[in-house]
């Protein structure tokens, strides 16, 4: 690390005597040997890395790309679109996502009951007097989670990731939840806090500060769900003394619960009869249900998207097994659900959805290769999502899409970029969401099956966007 320098004892005595009207005060101060503080004193890890004169790093971040035809994960530097490192994964057919603070790639394999992590090498630490950014090569790490059965829904919020393990009725394993942070990955925390159920279910958990809102499956006789594996209740778990404890069960049921999202004030769950909203008041949550609107018809909202700074949620209603989808916006404060004016073009189906980094855009990637960028606008005091524009992300003939593959998308958390992977052209395009233009390409030598962005997320800038 740095050279330790020895300071000799400085015996500096400052002595002053002052006589006031009556009283008298004397101060005598002697300076002793100073304490040297290692640079990383607040963090306890003494990683050897050099850093320049500055502590923060300007970088577009890194991109992880899974290959469709091999079990590898490739890491690219987005500043020069160069390949940094390729890692071989244990299994095929993985899903890819990022850790809550975007330092690690999370490789999940549901069938193998496996979650592994790869260090993206770009992260920020808060050193008290300054923010300290680090840039290292991507690195494999040994930390993995293998104790839960069927990790399915991974939900991130505000520095926490909740992993919902569905369990498996066939093998008699039960559902559980584990909550982890980037620090847990860094420190290889052996036992994570979470919930253990005594039944399996296809559920979801939303981490929210000290709370964890997680689904509850009741006895089949009591359950209002048509598919009994889907839970129909939501519990509020509170973190106490190292564990989550059930403090409240929301008063309303949510039959066939699937899909959840949260924003600053609400947590939303998709139910067959509408959307269940949990509204936080201190340590308690009020429950409210917004019934499905006519436009949803026989479908049900099974996927929800939310953003901390977006007042509205986006819900996607579809039939089981695909088919046409209806996209709605849900305004929790007004308890309103509304079909988006914008709907997919004929022949197109949505294959990926996401809010932009700061929530002002909602992105829908469709099967025809268009990235549809929606923006929230206010009309007569009502918020509506309207199309800001479309970006055609491929010049290829989409009928030549390799079997079983599709376009995939990820959103950078440090700017106005989204990245879309094109398996036909074997590249990833960088799309500027304000300008609605492709600004650069990351060339690949394989067809990408999944991508995710890693790096140092940026706080929102003061800007003119409607919120």
């Amino acid at each position, binding site marked *: 690390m740095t050279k330790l320098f020895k300071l000799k004892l400085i015996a500096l005595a400052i002595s002053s005597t002052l006589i006031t009207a009556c009283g008298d005060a004397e*101060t005598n101060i002697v300076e*002793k040997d100073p304490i040297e503080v290692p640079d990383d004193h607040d963090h306890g890890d003494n990683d050897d890395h050099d850093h320049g004169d500055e502590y923060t790093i300007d970088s577009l971040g890194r991109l992880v790309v899974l290959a469709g035809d091999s079990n590898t994960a490739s890491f690219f530097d987005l500043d020069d679109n160069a390949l940094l490192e390729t890692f071989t994964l244990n299994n095929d057919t993985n899903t890819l996502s990022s850790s809550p603070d975007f330092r690690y790639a999370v490789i999940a394999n549901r069938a193998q009951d496996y979650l592994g992590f790869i260090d993206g090498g770009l992260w920020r630490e808060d050193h008290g007097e300054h923010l300290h950014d680090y840039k290292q090569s991507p690195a494999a790490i040994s930390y993995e989670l293998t104790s839960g059965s069927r990790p399915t829904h991974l939900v991130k*919020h505000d520095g926490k990731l909740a992993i919902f393990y569905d369990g498996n009725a066939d093998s008699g394993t039960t559902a559980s939840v584990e909550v982890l942070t980037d620090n847990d990955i860094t420190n290889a925390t052996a036992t994570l806090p979470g919930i253990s159920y005594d039944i399996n279910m296809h559920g979801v958990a939303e981490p929210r500060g000290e709370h964890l809102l997680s689904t509850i499956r009741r006895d089949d006789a009591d359950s209002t769900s048509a598919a009994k594996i889907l839970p129909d209740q939501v519990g509020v778990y509170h973190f106490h003394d190292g564990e989550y404890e059930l403090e409240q069960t929301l008063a309303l049921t949510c039959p066939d619960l699937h899909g959840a999202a949260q924003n600053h004030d609400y947590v939303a769950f998709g139910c067959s009869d509408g959307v269940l909203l949990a509204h936080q008041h201190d340590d308690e949550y009020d429950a409210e249900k917004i019934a499905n609107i006519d436009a949803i018809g026989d479908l049900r909202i099974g996927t929800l998207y939310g953003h901390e700074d977006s007042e509205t949620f986006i819900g996607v209603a579809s039939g089981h097994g695909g088919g046409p989808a209806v996209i709605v916006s849900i305004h929790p404060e007004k308890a309103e659900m509304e079909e988006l004016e914008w709907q997919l073009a004929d022949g197109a189906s949505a294959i990926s959805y996401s809010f932009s980094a700061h929530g002002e855009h909602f992105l829908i990637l469709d099967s025809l290769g268009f990235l549809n960028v929606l923006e929230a606008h206010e009309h007569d005091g009502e918020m509506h999502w309207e199309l800001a524009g479309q970006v055609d992300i491929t010049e290829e003939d989409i009928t030549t899409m390799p079997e079983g593959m599709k376009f995939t998308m990820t959103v950078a958390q440090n700017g106005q970029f989204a990245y879309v992977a094109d398996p036909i052209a074997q590249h990833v395009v960088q799309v500027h969401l304000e300008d609605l233009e492709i600004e650069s390409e990351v060339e690949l030598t394989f067809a990408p099956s999944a991508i995710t962005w890693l790096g140092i997320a940026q706080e929102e800038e003061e800007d003119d966007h409607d919120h």
Partner: protein
Amino acid sequence: MNRRSQLAVLIAALLPASVLAKTIEGVVLNSQGNVVTNAIVEVEGSEIRVTTDENGRFVIVDLKDGLKELHVVAPGYAHLHRDIIINNDESHSVTFNLKRSPIEVIDIEATPIHMSAMESASPVSVLSGEQLRRQQAATLGDSLEKLPGVNTNFHAKVASTPIIRGLSGPRVLITQNGLDVSDVSRVGPDHSVASEASTAQQIEVLRGPATLFYGSGAIGGVVNVVDNRVPTDSTTRGEWNVEHNSVDNQKVASFNATTGTDSFAFYADAFWREADDYEIPVAAELDDHDHDHEEHSGDYTVANSHEESDGFTLGTSYLFDQGFVGIAVEQFNRQYGIPGHTHGGEDEHSDEEESVFADLEQTKVQLLSEYNLDNEWLNKINLRAGFTDYEHVEIEHGTVGTTFKNETNELRVDLMHNSFSKWNGGLSIHYKQSDVEAQGSEAFTPPSETQSIAVALMEERHFGDFLVQLGGRAERVTIDADNVLLPNIDAHAHDDEDGHDSHDHGHEHAHEESTDIIRVFNAEHEFTPVSLSAGVVWDFAPSYNLGLSVSLSERAPSASELLSFGAHIGTGTYEVGALFDMHEDGHLGLSEQTIDLETANNIDLTFRKTQGDIGFIFNAFYNQVDNYYYQIDTGLYAESGHDHGDEHDHGGEHDHGDEHDHSSELPVYLFKTDDVVLHGFEAQVAWQLTDEFKVDVFSDYVRARLKDGGNLPRTPPLRFGTEFSYQTEKLSAHLHVTRYQEQDRTAPEETTTDGYTMLDASISYDLSVLNQDVSLYLRGTNLTDTEARVHSSFLKNIAPRPGRSFALGIRGYF
């Protein structure tokens, strides 16, 4: 409802009311000519004290020759002062006529000179009996806030401490039976006072400088909580109480009892209290960003304002003819949430708030003794010794964040002399030593040892219609800290317009070297504060008097004011002691200023009507404090160093914008000295309309400003109020209205606080069950359910006063 001093009645009755050598016998009557029972007649400058029997009669025997000053005291009456000269083998028969006093007059215990609301040169208040029981609350500050000149710093009900004439913290000393309560409540507003009102007998407040009696920590005043833990007699008596309060589901139970034999007396008390988060009429946060105001359906509460405490005291004493000696042990436990103890202060996301609570534990041993001797010079020796072991831990996420400790030893001996050419008084010798330390993330003050030794002389004398009270005290205070730390905190300004702060920080603070050092100092301070006080009370007309008191008081700054360097989460500031200063280049180093004593020059003027159907007390004061230690906002920010490795770091997918950049940073406040002027008044008028009806009106005000312009923070606003009382043998009802005006004289970092009116009422009914006096009561507070934010509170913006509440309770006496 009077507690009968049965023993005294018995003694009086046993004595033949016949002629004895050198006796004074007499009868005490009221202005209607009816006898006054249970009046106490005492001979000043001696320990002689008798009580009138059911015929209003008393006898004082075995008197020596000479002038005797008799002091006659009875509840509800003005005190009477009468001189009688005793000659050889003479007996005197006297009749005392007591006049009614609508303002209760109770003497302060344990001062060598006579102090009461009506008679002394400097202003005092005493809360006792029924009034104390009506006003007692979970915290000392809230219990005393209805007294003129006393406000609460209302720390969300859990840790409120009293503010006397605008001063608090290290300037107001809290004592228990005259000995320092020895907690850390003087260091942080979120630290609770380790003393309990529900088992106390009376609470005394000395307003204005009282360093004369108590030393350095009392420059702004003293609150002395008196109980009978070391019993001075063995009369069997006791009191119990059970109460439920609606606003916070508070449950309280307490009792105290005294009993004993001829030679031994025993005392026990215990209390238990549990309260949930309290309800409030509006959202807790003044500046609430929630969008759902109108739709809010449930009750609002102040999160994390729950409290749970219990304690017991056991005491015993040996009674002998010349006095008593006794010892008492107290165990005091308290657990309370610390509202607003968020890391980084301004975070409006209640869901992100970490619940922090304090777990306080104190063991207190007090040894008290009084020895009346028959010496040529001395007539009484009072000895008080205390040992206190205090610890409180602040717990976050189930782990200990910071531990505060205070271990104090104290000894106080008062030598009371015989009347010496009509001067009464005594010499007081006082030693105190405390070891204070804070360990953990909030350890903003390094460990230190403070020792003080003092000698004080207090004397009084009547010159006709004048009472003169004089006093002087010299003290030596040493503060030693051998590990004062000066870290390199890289304090910096925030540029509000810039969204890219974090980047800028990196550039601005690029270091040439990447190793920081923490400078370490050994600091030794020695102070010699001196206090002088002179007062005169002139009974210029019957029933009226005029008091004037002037004093010069010096105070040694406290360890926290000098040595602090670190994040003080309780106040949401990064505190830097007066030992340090900001250099021109913006970094913090040792101060080049000399560390000096704080000096208060105080004038108090009092005008009273002491008896009759109308009584009043008007006080005006002017207090100029030179070298007043206070904190200034440097405009810089420093990292709290408090939440590293914490899972609550923002920076996930859902970043909330700019303000969170600084979520763990605190504004840097530096202790500086300046000259300060405090002036104001307290007014109290009581009018006994009929035997049953009484009206009290009061008002107080303090203006606290820097001599060179500017206001001190958290100064209570102008306040006025009235109380209507209706009292019969069985029934007692009170209606209390207090108006707090808007406070717009604010310090730079403060905002104006709106005024509000508090309406309280109580009713109680006495009945006798199984030979016990039992009193059932119902008390309503904040009946209009108004939003009341307390300007003097650090939590003004996040914790208003509780909403409407009803307390139902039962109290018994035996």
